[in-house]
């Protein structure tokens, strides 16, 4: 009985572990794919095109108008601040050169989130 129970519970625990593991790795894969998507958008001339104005690790021939995109997580601990800057930086700084990616629909909300995921890895 004890044995039977323990086998059963061990099986259950194993199954649970498998399920959790699958979730975690799926979550990690999703996060990774968002980061990759964000990087692609950041370098894409037709989309985010961040590289045109900012130095970004891994990007060739960056522009110099904006600040280097580095240590983003320590500079902007709050994710929503980054989203706001990408959405429409003119609200914070009317003279900014930065295009209002959200307001002018250059990027979708999902794309902005992917770029933010990428920025947070820098």
């Amino acid at each position, binding site marked *: 009985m004890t044995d039977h129970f323990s086998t059963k519970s061990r099986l259950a625990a194993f199954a649970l572990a498998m399920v959790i593991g699958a979730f975690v790795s799926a979550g990690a894969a999703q996060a990774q794919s968002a980061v990759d998507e964000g990087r692609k958008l950041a370098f894409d001339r037709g989309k985010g095109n961040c*590289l*045109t*104005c900012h130095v970004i690790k891994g990007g060739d*021939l*960056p*522009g*110099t*108008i904006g600040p280097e995109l580095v240590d983003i997580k320590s500079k902007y601990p709050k994710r929503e601040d980054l989203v706001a800057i990408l959405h429409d930086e*003119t609200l914070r700084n009317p*003279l900014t*050169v930065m*295009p*209002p990616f959200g307001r*002018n*629909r*250059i990027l979708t909300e999902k794309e902005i989130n992917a770029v933010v995921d990428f920025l947070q890895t820098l």
Partner: protein
Amino acid sequence: MKLRSAIYLASAALSLALLTLASTLPSDAADKVDPVADAKAFKKFFTDKFPKVKLEDFVNGPYSMNEDLYRQWQEKEQFPPYEFSLEMGKEMFSKPFKNGKTYADCFENGGIGVRQNYPYFDAKEGKVITLELALNRCREANGEAPYSYVRDEMAALTAYMAFTSRGKPMDIKIPDDPRALAAYEAGKEYFYTRRGQLNFSCATCHVQSPGERIRAEILAPALGIVNAMPIYRSEWSGMGTTSRRFTTCNSQIRGVPLSPQDDEYRNVEYYLSYVSNGLPISGPGARP
């Protein structure tokens, strides 16, 4: 009596306050179009920003922005990429129209050394006349079809006319005519107004960011930018007129370009040329 004097005092105080307010508000000064002050402030902005660049060197665009590029420019000038266009322009300029007349008949001094006077304000029409426009009008007046404003023929003609005017200081006049001032002001407004999906004005790149790079390209200062027109651009692998530059700038910021020589483009060229007065004509130019 007491009440009356109180009212009198109060109204006197109020009008004094209004007077003070009126004199502190800059509305009068701001509303007044003052091209002379504009041009002075415009030049000062650039010379303050780039203290090492000589005023007359701003006409070399990105090549004026650092020493390495300046050297590149000097090397480029040994075998200028606009040479073919210049040759073509010279030949076109001297070849008579079917009616026997030539371009020289349409312009002061036979069209030689007059680039610095364009655009000018035409009092009869009440509008700005650019060199490109004047060239096509000359053609049409002589029974020839006008050229495309953005293609090689127009670039060649303006290249030749600029070349014969090299070194002459830009000399744009704003006559004492409210319509001329209005055209200037409209051009200035266009220059500083943000537009397009990217939300850029001309000034965003060429006043706020000259000398900075967008990817590998160096942004040119607005001061003297028209003095170098037309330009050979390596990126275009060919020549470009002022019209081509304006329309492609508008496309690049994901705006809808106006038609070449639209009133607004004529006005912005008028503004931009006026504030570059005194700087030498350097066209045709070469750009990366």
